[in-house]
C-alpha cells in the first residue's frame, strides 16, 4: 500500500520536473525573441482588417465590423497584458520582457477603434459631443482610453527611471482601464449576450489573482 503511494508521488514528481523543464525551455526560447518582432506581429491584424473592410471581407457593413474587430483585439491585448504577472507567479512563465509591447499595442488598437468611431462611424462633430456626454457606454469607453494615454506616454525607459517608484503606482491605472474597457463592451450589447461577460469575467478574475497573498504562491512554488 505504502509502496503504491510512494510510486504515485514519485510519478507526479517526475511530471512536475518535466513541466518545470519545459517551462525553462519555453523561457529560454522567449528570451531569444526580439521585442520588435512582437510589435510587428501584434500590428499585423490592423492592416489586415482594413484590407478586408475595403474588399468586402467584413460584410456589407464594414464600418461597424472594423470598429468591433479593433475593439476586440484591444480587449484581447489588455487581457493578455494582465496574464503576464499571474503566469510568472503561478506557472513560472516569463513574458515580462514583452509586457511593454503588449501594452503599447493594446493602446494603439484602442486608439484605432476610437478613430474609426470618430471618422468613419459617427462622422458628425455635434453628434460626437452629444454621444460622449449622453451615452454612458461611450463615456466609459473614452474614460478607459484617456487613462491609457499617460501609460502609453510613460512606457519608455527614460520615464521608468525618472518616475522611479511612482511609475509602478501610475501604471496600476491599467487595472481601472481594463475594467472600463470590458464594462464598455458589456454596456453596448443588445439583450443578454455571453461574449462581453466573458471578457469582463476574465479581467476581474485576472485582477483578483493579484489579491492572492504572496505567501500562498511561494509555498506552491517551493513545493
Amino acid at each position, binding site marked *: 500500500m505504502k509502496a503504491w503511494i510512494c510510486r504515485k508521488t514519485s510519478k507526479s514528481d517526475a511530471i512536475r520536473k518535466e513541466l518545470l523543464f519545459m517551462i525553462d525551455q519555453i523561457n529560454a526560447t522567449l528570451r531569444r525573441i526580439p521585442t520588435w518582432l512582437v510589435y510587428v506581429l501584434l500590428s499585423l491584424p490592423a492592416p489586415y482588417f482594413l484590407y478586408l473592410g*475595403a474588399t468586402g471581407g467584413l*460584410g456589407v457593413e464594414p464600418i461597424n465590423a472594423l470598429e468591433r474587430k479593433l475593439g476586440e483585439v484591444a480587449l484581447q491585448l489588455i487581457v493578455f497584458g494582465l496574464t503576464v504577472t499571474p503566469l510568472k507567479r503561478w506557472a513560472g512563465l516569463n513574458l515580462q520582457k514583452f509586457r511593454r509591447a503588449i501594452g503599447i499595442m493594446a493602446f494603439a488598437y484602442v486608439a484605432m477603434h476610437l478613430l474609426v468611431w470618430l471618422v468613419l*462611424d459617427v462622422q*458628425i462633430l455635434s453628434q460626437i459631443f452629444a454621444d460622449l456626454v*449622453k*451615452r454612458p457606454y461611450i463615456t466609459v469607453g473614452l474614460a478607459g482610453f484617456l487613462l491609457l494615454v499617460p501609460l502609453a506616454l510613460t512606457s519608455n525607459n527614460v520615464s521608468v527611471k525618472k518616475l522611479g517608484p511612482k511609475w509602478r503606482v501610475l501604471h496600476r491605472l491599467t487595472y481601472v482601464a481594463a475594467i472600463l474597457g470590458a464594462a464598455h463592451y458589456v454596456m453596448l450589447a*443588445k*439583450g*443578454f*449576450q455571453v461574449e462581453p461577460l466573458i471578457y469582463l469575467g476574465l479581467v476581474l478574475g485576472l485582477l483578483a489573482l493579484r489579491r492572492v497573498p504572496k505567501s500562498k504562491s511561494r509555498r506552491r512554488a517551493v513545493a
Partner: protein
Amino acid sequence: MAFRWTNDLRPEDVTPEAVFMNRRQLIGGLAAGTILGSAGMAQAQEALEPNSWEDITTYCNFYEFGTGKDDPAKYASSLVTDPWSVTIDGLVDRPGDYSLGDILSQMTVEERLYRFRCVEAWSMVVPWNGFELADLLELAGVQSGAKYVAFETAYRPKEMPGTLFPVLDWPYVEGLRLDEAMHPLTIMATGLYGKPLPNQNGAPLRLVVPWKYGFKSIKSVVKITLTDTQPPTSWNKANPREYGFYSNVNPNVDHPRWSQASERAIGGGLFARRKPTLMYNGYEEEVAGLYEGMDLSKNF
C-alpha cells in the same frame, strides 16, 4: 383588397438585380476616386434604390440564429419552413391553423419597395413581395372587440441554435395596434426580388411595418392573436427603458444609448456617409394620423 398603396416608383423602375449591382460597382469606383466629393452626390440622390440581394440576405438580425449579423445567413438554413402553418386565434370569427398554401391561395402577392430602418441606426431599401396583413386578418374575421394584434415567431431550439442562449425571452413576440395592423402599408412578406424569402429574412412569412424600427417586423410567424389588451413585445420585455411598444422611427427621440437622428445606408462601403433619418421613416404622410395627439417621446 390588395394594391391599396402604391409606391411613387412603378414596379418597372425597380432595377434588375444584376444591372443594379453593376451600376453600383461603377458608382463605388467613382466614389473611391473622389472620396470627399461623393458625399454631396449621395445626398442629392433621393430616389429609392433597392439594396442588393447580398446586402439584404447577409446582414440580418435574427437572434434565434445568433447575435452576429452574419449568423442568420450561416445558420438559418436549418429552419424547416415546409410544411408551415399559422395559428390565428383570439377575437376572430374563424380561429384555427391556416396552412401557408391555404393562405397564399387567397392572397394577392404584390411588390412593395420599402425603406427599412433598424433601431441600430442602419438602413436598407428592400423590394419585398407580400400581401396586406389586413387581407389575412379579414380572412379570419376580426371581431369588434379586438384592439391589438399579437405575433409570435417559431421557437424550435433544435433548428435555432441561437435560442440556446437566453439573449431574449423566447419565443420572440411582437404586437401592433389594430389600426396599425390594418394599415395598407403593413404587409406580410413572402419574398424578396420576386424570389422566395430566404430563411434568414424570416421565411416563409414575416411582418413588414416600414415606418417602425426593424425589430417590429417579426420573422417566421407561426401565430397571430387578436386581443383587446396591449400584447407584450420581446424587446420591450428585455429593456422597457430602451424599447417601447410603438417603436416608430423618429429622429427626434433617441435610443438611450445612441442617437436616432441619422442612419447609415448599408452598401456604401468603408466611407459611407450618414444620412438624416426621416420621421416615420419617410411614411409620415401615410401614418402620422394614427398617432395624432400622442406624446411621441412617451409613447416611443
